[in-house]
């Protein structure tokens, strides 16, 4: 633990003596910065996907879990009579907080996105909809269906469960998919940085031998590589995050009709979350490079 603590302290405290040991050029440096940048850019989208899925799942759950709909299809005057009967029935049903019949304007507004505003809706046999809001632990759906069947034969209860469940599951899986993608991106970053660090260590093997010969300890030798790769990764990832945030920011803004894709983004304090990505990438680089350096030095013994 003390070795790790010292290594972390060395990371933030520059040592010109150790930092100059590794030549400042080479493919490894560009590869590290580029990889960190690209991976952080992708990670921003994975994070945005996760957060958007989470918001969507919550929104659907909130919007649907507490409401249900009763649809009344009947001939002419029967509609009004059955609507009255159903509202009366609901008023005495335990677990129902409120119930109201949607007005013609509200029903028209629901259909306009599908049929357009020019369609003569008044000529269509559109059922009357009653919106039911639950309270407490909700109502007994089966019991309510039986009562509706007896008192309003044209009424059908839709408690949303049939399509709410798959939607909630899909959103939840999408959220986990986003987190999984984020983990894979970090793992890939670690793998590529390990490769770059190994290449750098092999290319500078003569330097390692010189340092060994003059009495440098492994931690001192590793420090030069670890610090360089970690800071490069931090810088690359920060750049990637900035680019990712700009890309997310210029996506079309969300609205009620835009659906999921236009909701892909951050809101409020979640705009700060992506800034954890450079730190995570730097931690990955620190661990990967330190492991690679100590492994290489052990092999040279």
């Amino acid at each position, binding site marked *: 633990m003390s070795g790790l603590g010292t290594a972390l302290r060395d990371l933030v405290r520059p040592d010109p*003596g150790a930092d100059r040991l590794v030549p400042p050029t080479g493919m490894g440096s560009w590869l590290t910065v580029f990889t960190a940048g690209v991976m952080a850019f992708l990670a921003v989208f994975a994070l945005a996907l996760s957060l958007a899925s989470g918001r969507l799942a919550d929104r659907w759950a909130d919007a649907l879990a507490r409401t249900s709909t009763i649809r009344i299809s009947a001939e002419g005057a029967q509609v009004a009579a059955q609507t009255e009967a159903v509202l009366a029935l609901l008023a005495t049903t335990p677990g129902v907080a409120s119930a109201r019949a949607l007005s013609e304007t509200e029903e028209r507004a629901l259909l306009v996105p599908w049929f357009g505003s020019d369609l003569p809706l008044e000529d269509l046999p559109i059922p009357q909809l009653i919106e039911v809001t639950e309270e407490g632990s909700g109502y007994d759906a089966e019991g309510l269906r039986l009562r509706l069947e007896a008192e309003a034969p044209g009424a059908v209860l839709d408690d949303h469960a049939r399509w709410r469940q798959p939607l909630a599951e899909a959103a939840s899986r999408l959220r986990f998919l986003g987190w999984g993608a984020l983990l894979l991106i970090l793992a890939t970053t670690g793998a590529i940085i390990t490769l770059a660090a190994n290449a750098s260590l092999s290319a500078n093997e*003569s330097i390692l031998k010189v*340092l*060994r010969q*003059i*009495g440098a300890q492994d*931690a001192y030798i590793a420090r030069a590589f670890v610090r360089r790769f970690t800071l490069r990764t931090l810088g690359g990832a920060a750049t990637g995050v900035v680019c990712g945030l700009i890309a997310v920011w210029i996506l079309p803004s969300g609205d009620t009709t835009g659906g999921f894709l236009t909701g892909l983004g951050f809101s409020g304090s979640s705009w700060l979350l992506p800034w954890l990505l450079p730190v995570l990438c730097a931690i990955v680089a620190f661990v990967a490079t330190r492991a690679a350096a100590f492994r290489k030095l052990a092999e040279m013994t």
Partner: protein
Amino acid sequence: MIAFENVAYSYGGGELLSGVDLTLQPGSFHFLTGPSGAGKSTLLKLCYGELLSTKGRVVLFDRDIRGVGRDGLARMRRRVGVVQQDCQFLDHLSVAANVTLPLSVTGREGDPQDLSDLLGWVGLTHLAGARPPQLSGGERQRAALARAVITSPDVMLADEPTGNLDWEMSLRLLTLLVELNRMGKTILIATHDMNLIRAAKTQVAARVLRIKGGRVELAGAEL
């Protein structure tokens, strides 16, 4: 200072050294001779733990090299100066930075005046800012010597240090090593240059060890 106890070393193909018993007392001056491939460089590397014996014990500063661990060995190496025939440097650093490297790795900063004196001692003052690839063979050997002595080590090991030098420069390097010995340093030089050994014997009480058939023996009076 350095002791070999029944030491053997084998590469994949067979035993290069076997049954080596050797003791270097503090302040002693030894040459190590033998034909090419006899194991001179290997023996030197065994002294400071770059190679580990396949049999027997190598004791450095009263401690078995095999039991000190990598960090312990690193600390011991700070007390050993090494000059190799093929001197390696950090080519992206200046000669001065390379010479002070042993101080840097222990967190010390060299006194600029001491560095200047040291570079003057090895005749490299004018090349302090040069990069190692710009140096000739002899200059590299002298830079390696300066790097080896900057921490004032107790032991100096040199592997064919005059291999790339003309006779005049060889004598100059030998004089530097003799001066170090007079300061109490233990010196071991691997060489096949008999003229160098004869020249040294006129300045210092040097003993000559010879590797023959994988074993180390004291060379006779013919030297």
